[in-house]
């Protein structure tokens, strides 16, 4: 079976991007060699290779596979070069990587512990506080068994191979967290206005959602498809002497003014005057039974697979929609040459625009208005989806991939953490903000400020960058206690 999936999932040509000419990269996966393309992530390379189950759930050992494509869901955590819990969907392949899966006994593919899922009704939430309360000794024995299963396979590497990062402290006027459409724009605009900018990004390639955006986007007097614009902005950032690009994850903005960034080669302690939160948005999943089954993917992950990874996750798709993004996504899938069985649209018939519905009908894609997904089917990956239609019928749709286009949720962890620390003013609206008070300023822009359109995020970023540079002069630097 795996070779059949593999032969389909590789995408030697792409209708817009042409032939895939990226050089091959070979890495090791559980004792065998996998051939990937340069620039692919480990998770996508394994999906392309026909590996559907990447890990097992913590408690009931349910199979889990590539889901969010953004390193946010935990369904693709693998041990990479001895390091446990690495989010493989955002970890680039490199020659000679050693990759293996975690959990599962005797293996993740054939896991007898998945039997736990069959008896899950006897292990409801909080069962550990109810069982063995009168027999503590039996409880300890049971706990030790559970402990072996729980940490299962996530072995810390031997001490000698564990790196300890040096610490580097630096002050700067503006930190932009996130190098997606709004972050790139904000960094360029702030630097242009004279600020000393540090741009923080976790992922290998800059551009975020721009990389998977098929529509044209305008910035800096240039109008181009998303991936092309991402290249241009990336190049501008690299050339800009006022911008330092820092690879790593921002951990928070703490009470003594430090914004630590866990980088690859050091722990950077930034002490900024102004922070621009440009961390984008999350795709929220939609609730239905079996929404964690391999083959149920978020729509953004599927776009990313097609356009960035150049991997086709399946042949027959059902799209679960809650707004026009889902409908546009179905049209995009059709354009990419795969079969779209239906759009399960949670809105009523009159809420979707007629023009979009006509576009669906013209492509032979069924639109189920007022419908809800009920349950996915399949043992190791999706084989079908049962939906309840607007008029109350239950319908079983045959498919091998369910694309969930749920609502976008702002990724606002940094500003929430900062607000909880209770010492700054926040605004999603950057223009017109009163910046005269000499207090630290955090500006939230783009997806993290609720913008769902890429063009809006870019425009927002340029505004915020200028505002940030203006604010720098008004903000007193922190004086560490």
């Amino acid at each position, binding site marked *: 079976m795996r070779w059949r999936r593999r032969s389909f999932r590789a995408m030697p040509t792409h209708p817009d991007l042409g032939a895939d000419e990226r050089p091959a990269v070979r890495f090791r996966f559980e004792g065998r060699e996998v051939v990937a393309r340069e620039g692919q992530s480990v998770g996508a390379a394994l999906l392309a290779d026909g590996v559907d189950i990447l890990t097992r759930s913590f408690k009931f050992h349910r199979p889990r596979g590539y889901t969010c494509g953004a390193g946010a869901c935990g369904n693709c955590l693998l041990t990479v070069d001895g390091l446990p819990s690495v989010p493989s969907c955002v970890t680039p392949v490199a020659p000679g990587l050693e990759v293996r899966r975690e959990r599962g006994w005797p293996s993740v593919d054939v896991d007898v512990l998945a039997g736990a899922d069959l008896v899950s009704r006897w292990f409801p939430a909080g069962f550990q506080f109810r069982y063995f309360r009168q027999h503590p000794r039996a409880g300890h024995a049971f706990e030790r068994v559970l402990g072996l299963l729980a940490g299962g396979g*996530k072995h810390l590497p031997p001490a000698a191979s564990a790196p300890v990062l040096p610490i580097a402290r630096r002050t700067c006027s503006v930190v932009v967290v996130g190098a997606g459409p709004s972050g790139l724009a904000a960094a360029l605009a702030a630097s242009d206005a004279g600020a000393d900018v540090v741009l923080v990004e976790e992922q290998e390639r800059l551009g975020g959602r721009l990389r998977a955006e098929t529509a044209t986007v305008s910035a800096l007097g240039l109008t181009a498809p998303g991936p092309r614009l991402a290249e241009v902005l990336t190049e501008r950032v690299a050339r800009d002497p006022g911008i330092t690009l820092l690879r790593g994850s921002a951990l928070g903005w703490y009470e003594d003014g*430090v914004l630590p960034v866990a980088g690859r080669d050091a722990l950077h302690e930034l002490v900024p005057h102004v922070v621009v939160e440009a961390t984008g948005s999350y795709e929220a999943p939609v609730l239905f039974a079996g929404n964690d089954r391999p083959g149920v993917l978020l729509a953004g992950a599927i776009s990313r697979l097609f356009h960035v990874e150049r991997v086709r996750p399946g042949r027959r798709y059902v799209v679960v929609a809650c707004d026009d993004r889902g409908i546009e996504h179905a049209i995009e899938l059709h354009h990419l040459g795969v079969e779209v069985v239906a759009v399960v649209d949670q809105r009523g018939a009159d809420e979707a625009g007629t023009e979009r519905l006509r576009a669906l009908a013209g492509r032979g894609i069924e639109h189920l208005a007022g419908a809800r997904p009920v349950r996915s089917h399949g043992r190791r990956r999706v084989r079908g989806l049962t939906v309840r239609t607007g008029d109350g019928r239950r319908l079983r749709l045959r498919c091998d991939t369910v694309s969930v286009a749920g609502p976008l949720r702002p990724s606002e962890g940094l500003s929430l953490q900062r607000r909880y620390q209770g010492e700054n003013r926040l605004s999603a609206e950057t223009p017109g903000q009163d910046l005269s008070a000499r207090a630290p300023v955090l500006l939230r822009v783009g997806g993290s400020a609720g913008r769902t359109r890429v063009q809006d995020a870019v425009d927002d970023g340029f505004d915020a960058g200028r505002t940030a540079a203006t604010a720098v002069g008004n903000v007193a630097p922190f004086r560490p206690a």
Partner: protein
Amino acid sequence: MPIPGVTARPLARTYDAVVIGAGIQGLATAYELAKRGVRRVAVLDSSWPGGGASGRNGELIRSAFSSAEWITLFDASLKRWHQLSRELDFNVLFNPSGYLVLASTEEQYARCRADVEVQARFGLRTELLDQQAVLDRVPALNPDAVVGAVLQPAAGFAHHDAAVWGYARAAARLGVEVHAGIEVLGVTVRGGRVAGVTTSTHDVSAPVVVNAAGAAAGRLAGTAGVELPLDMARLEMLVTESVAPFLRPAVAALAALGYCHQTSRGEFVGGTELAVPDHTPSLNGTYRLLRDMAQKFVWLFPQLSAARVLRHWAGLITQTADLSPIVGTAPGVDGFYLSCGWVYGFVGAPAAAAHLADTVCDGRLHPTIAPFDALRFAEGRPIREGSLVVPAQSEGPGPREVAS
């Protein structure tokens, strides 16, 4: 959504006893009072059960201390911990996997040796381990951090939320009313006797008031005219993602001012302290401590540098000059009882609560808690307990300092 153990009834105007604070001290005291037949008991809390230090502490449990007072009280507690799941009919996940007090210098090791001799005199089963014996038990420890240790095999750790929930439910079954979201503004005293409390809703009269208000205990005692020598301190903890078991016993490391354990599910949980206590009255976690914890725990367990931190949080405690709690009667106010100033409060709660309830019901100070009275500071007889993992003991080698 109702919080388990929290009453749905409105707050009445009179009770037989009011306990301020629904942390483990308050809930356990209310449970023990109800068990002894006190009929109408109310526990009042400004937030929710276990919202303060009881749900934020390090969960470690031991009785291997070095003074008669501490050993007597905390060993009585340890014995109760072994039976607590059965007693409360709720599994508090007490895990008797042993407790190591780790010495990283010869001086600390000498103190450990002296402590073991004291502990033997009080009938505690503890062992002095040399470096090799410690590393045999916990191979993940950095040998440079180990000179030796005291091991108490019967000690360990429990689940702090479960202990709070267990006491709250058990107390509720006995008729105790736990009221969440009701702030006590003051304790009223008439003619040298406690009369009740004033709350954010209305006044409540009660002949017995127990002050187990954690970080707010000092202020509340002050409203009754009882001045307690309490200092507030902020402590912080972290928890990592779940990894395969590498650490069985609970560990307190004197050189790192740190304490830690690995739960059955695989999370590593621990906290460290800085040489200078932090008196900020805030529940925000700080980067300063996050970095300190990461550096010290990676020094102790080098493998941990590959583990990810899931959460990091802060909690507030109040402590006294001798770091021992104040448990017993409030001087000068009849009917007003104290259980505050706790640093090892999670460990001590089961026994302290039982003996404080004995004291309330018998009208006579129970001998186990008698040394922890509030007047010992004014009368110049502090408790001398030398085996606590607190800033005063910072010395010798630790994780390397990083210039910043």
